[in-house]
């Protein structure tokens, strides 16, 4: 027994090392597989508040760009107004719309923490469960899709951005509606993604727009990017192509969280179908 104690105290550095190293790795592995360790990440009170303060300061530096993007957004919306169309029909009949109920709702939120240079990138925003945000909702911004919500606290949410090893979103080619999915490219370029599993019948063109299909978290028709390269690394039964993303993830300031009001209904129905089989 004494010898054992002497042994331990002689090599105490090594044993302490083992204890702490195992502890850290356990924390790391747990977090990796469940995204659960919500007490040590930037949605907790202290780091979240610090980040939003620093971000208040940063946001002054890019007011110009935000203003520009808001102005473009305004112009785009104004183009959609009835008053900006030339009316050439003879009779117009306005019905109180009971057929189309609003399916998607948007909540605007400010980005308080962001990264683009890691293998797995996350974005923290300053709205949380209090505003009705929940896990699994899609997130877009003016220029395209951003990612999905993976963790929510009272006042903050964490978004797994498209620039993440595990992110996959259903997408389609704008012209011929061929479906595939986008994920982040192999070379970790924050501007590039890959569109995969498009059927061989599609005839994609360089520069063709890639948009959301409406099968996942987003309404259909939200831009994702443009095809930048058709030459594919892996061939086979389906086409893969490179896409230049329309969102500049490094400069994200404001995002919209998409609340799909019918999502629950759809998921329940699909789950039931699966059970029936």
């Amino acid at each position, binding site marked *: 027994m004494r010898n054992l104690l002497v042994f331990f105290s002689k090599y*105490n550095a090594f044993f*302490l*090392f083992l204890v702490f190293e195992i502890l*850290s790795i356990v924390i*790391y592995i747990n977090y990796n597989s469940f995204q659960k360790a919500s007490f*040590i*990440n*930037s949605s907790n009170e202290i780091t979240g508040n610090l980040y939003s303060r620093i971000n208040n300061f940063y946001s002054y530096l890019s007011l110009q760009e935000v203003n520009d993007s808001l102005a473009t957004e305004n112009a785009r919306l104004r183009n959609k107004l009835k008053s900006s169309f030339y009316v050439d029909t003879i009779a117009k009949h306005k019905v109180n719309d009971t057929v189309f109920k609003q399916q998607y709702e948007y909540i605007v939120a400010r980005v308080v923490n962001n990264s683009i*240079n*890691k293998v797995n990138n996350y974005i923290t925003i300053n709205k949380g469960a209090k505003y009705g945000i929940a896990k699994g909702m899609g997130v877009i911004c003016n220029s395209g899709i951003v990612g999905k919500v993976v963790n929510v606290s009272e006042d903050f949410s964490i978004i797994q951005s498209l620039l993440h090893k595990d992110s996959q979103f259903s997408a389609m080619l704008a012209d011929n509606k061929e479906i595939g999915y986008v994920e982040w490219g192999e070379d970790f370029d924050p501007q590039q993604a890959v569109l995969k599993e498009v059927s061989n019948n599609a005839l994609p063109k360089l520069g063709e727009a890639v948009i959301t299909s409406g099968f996942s978290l987003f309404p259909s028709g939200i831009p994702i990017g443009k095809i930048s390269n058709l030459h594919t690394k892996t061939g086979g039964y389906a086409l893969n192509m490179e896409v230049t993303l329309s969102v500049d993830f490094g400069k994200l300031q404001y995002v919209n969280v998409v609340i799909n009001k019918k999502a629950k209904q759809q998921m329940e129905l699909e789950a039931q179908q699966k059970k029936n089989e």
Partner: protein
Amino acid sequence: MNRALIVNVLRFIVLVFLQVFLLKNISIYNLSIPYPYILIILLLPFETNNFILFLLSFAVGLTIDAFYDSPGLHAAACVLLAFVRIIFINLTVHKDGFDNEPEPSLSLMGIRWFFTYVLVLTFAHHFFLFTLESFSFSRLPYTLGRLFFSWIFTVFLILLSGLLFFRSKDRK
């Protein structure tokens, strides 16, 4: 004793702020990412108790993790760093012959020893950090590139800070 404590606490706060709010946004071609916050651990006094050393490294790592959203990753790398530090100092430094609370700083130990010290310890930290982060062999060349360029960048920043706070009267 008190002076050493205050200096180390201040160093901790300044370096964490610098790392989290400034250097986190800096990366050269997405390849070179500096982590000079490890200076907090590198510059702890020689006579720090092993247990305290590990505890502090773990705490520093977790603090950085809280801001980087990667619980455990930096903590694991910092604990390894502390272990390598103990081995390195045991092999190269004779403990007696110092008066009150010496730190392994550039001004005290001289450029040759300090450069080797920083080179070896930074490599250990970065190697562990980047391998653990990517967690697979499939992107090995990319990971190695990141490791190499980040290593150079961090060592450069640490030496720069060593020169910035150089006090010639420390040298015997």
